[in-house]
């Protein structure tokens, strides 16, 4: 099939008209999370940046935003890792291989890869935050020579909630990536670190002028981790974080995702701390 150029695919009478994408693989990762591999039905590439998201539709049920979890360096299929919580996410789980879903996007502003080049990148993931960060991590690894030290800190509630275990096993063995993981609560088989993700900072050396910290996680994590990297001396405009808000349109119209005057769907979801710190509704 002849891929349609991106610009042409986006030229539509309605910003709400999705493209069709086929589910070509489904892997259950945990009791509540499933990894979906999809391909656009017209054969075109998604053309995303790590950190961007899609509005995914199960027609007749609804539409919801999900981060793109695969890296643009990995070809035309793309992946979403979705936690079952409500109508759309349950309906997605029921879909079989070969089913079509609607997708709109890629939407929003992704991670600032150009700021990270030739710098140390410190990735900090809490819970589902690993989903968009996996796109970034894979991209960093695939273009490894463009970046200096790559450090990844990953915290989850308990070992059973850990996502992407197979990939993590590979990241751990690489000597050009420093990967550290912790859980809030250990279970009998767990031999690693126990405690919140901030405890992983203890044995970490951060060069404030050469490091770009990138964090995605729940609001409580941001509060603590931002404090920690600021204490290391990292300037505010180099601290990168991605926020989650309720979203409906994904294009800066419907108002749901607004943080003060900022639209998370359009101006974010990725921001620098400098951009957010004066916005009280950012809750940082």
């Amino acid at each position: 099939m002849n891929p349609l150029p991106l610009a042409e695919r986006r030229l539509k009478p309605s910003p709400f008209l999705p493209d069709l994408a086929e589910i070509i693989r489904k892997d259950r990762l945990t009791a509540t999370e499933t990894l979906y591999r999809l391909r656009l039905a017209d054969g075109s590439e998604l053309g995303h940046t790590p950190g961007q998201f899609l509005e995914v539709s199960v027609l007749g049920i609804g539409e919801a935003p999900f981060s793109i979890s695969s890296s643009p360096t990995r070809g035309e299929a793309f992946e979403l890792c979705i936690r079952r919580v409500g109508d759309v996410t349950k309906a997605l789980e029921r879909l079989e291989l070969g089913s079509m879903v609607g997708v709109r996007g890629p939407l929003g502003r992704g991670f600032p890869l150009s700021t990270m080049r030739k710098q140390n990148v410190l990735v900090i993931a809490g819970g589902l935050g690993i989903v968009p960060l996996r796109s970034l991590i894979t991209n960093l690894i695939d273009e490894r020579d463009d970046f200096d030290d790559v450090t990844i800190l990953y915290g989850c509630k308990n070992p059973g909630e850990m996502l992407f275990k197979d990939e993590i096993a590979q990241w751990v063995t690489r000597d050009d990536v420093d990967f550290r993981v912790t859980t809030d609560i250990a279970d009998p088989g767990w031999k690693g670190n126990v405690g919140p993700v901030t405890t992983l900072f203890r044995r970490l050396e951060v060069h404030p002028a050469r490091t770009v910290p990138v964090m995605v996680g729940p609001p409580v994590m941001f509060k603590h981790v931002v404090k920690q990297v600021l204490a290391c001396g990292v300037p505010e405009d180099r601290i990168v974080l991605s926020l989650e808000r309720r979203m409906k349109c994904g294009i800066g119209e419907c108002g749901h995702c607004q943080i003060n005057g900022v639209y998370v769907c359009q101006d974010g979801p990725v921001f620098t701390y400098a951009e957010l710190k004066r916005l009280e509704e950012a809750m940082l």
Partner: protein
Amino acid sequence: MLDRMVPKADLNRFIDRLASEQTVAAPVAEGPSIRFQAIRAAHEIAEHYLPTALPPSKYLLPVKETLLQFRLGEHIEMEPVLEAPEVIVFGIRPCDLHALALLDAIFIDDKHDGHYAARRRRITLVGMECLEPCDDRCFCHSMETLEVHANYDLLLTDLGDDVYVAVGSPKGRDLFAGLTGAREALYEDRTRLRRAHEARDAAFTPRLDVSFDQLPGLLAESADSLLWDVLGEKCLSCGACTNVCPTCYCFDVGDELDLDLATGRRYRTWDSCQLDAFAMVGTGESFRKPRAMRVKHRLNRKGRYIMERYGRQGCVGCGRCARACLVDINPIEVFNQLKGQPASRTVR
């Protein structure tokens, strides 16, 4: 484009004829309130009116609007629905014309929203100037939305027995071409118009203690004001204020399936930032839980955020929200109280 002068009687006959041939909407008295409605004859139009209960923007962003229709099955079919009835809306006040200009800037220039654009193409806007203030809740004079110079097809000014007609677009010119009794506006007609404007300018007085372009700064300084907590205590979170506001455009999106479970549609409906669930996410966390934060958000959108993003008034001073509010939350009072106690955490 050349302005016209027309005797009122001729204008009314013209409206009668138009209304018999196509959809004409105008403000109509319905009990104590005035609403935009389809009319059949000019005499149905309310003579004097406050801003209508609902703004005319409902013709561009209806309460519920279909965005897509689809058919499920082996091959999913879907197509956008551009519902756009042809309608001539008579008697739109200048404040509402300013609000529509803002919506155009957002939905057409910025978002390229085909649904809005299709409706906008098929609506004809006939404005009606205000020559005296409607009540003590309006503050268009302070928001500089009393005068309007663009974004209408025709703009009417009531000069007694005659109506002055400013032509704002080719569409307006063509609509008026069929009007008998109209003539080109002459120097003396423009003099009458100017006198009417002078009388109007004397009748309207500022209601805000700040100019509209100082509001963003004032609101930014007032982020910590205790007034927000006071308003949060009063507000019922009913959402009436956002429903009636001509510059409110937030919406929710949903799907519905027909009984055959094969066909259905996606629609958008009005939503309100004053409702608790508006900013709630998957974890059940609401990012704007306290009422004080929600009231503050609305008034910041009106006085600050929209202005900062789109360079236009996000509030046009129509006073509808104050008239609709059961507990008398009134932007005039809010802005003036903030002005009276800048940056401090004291109130009254």
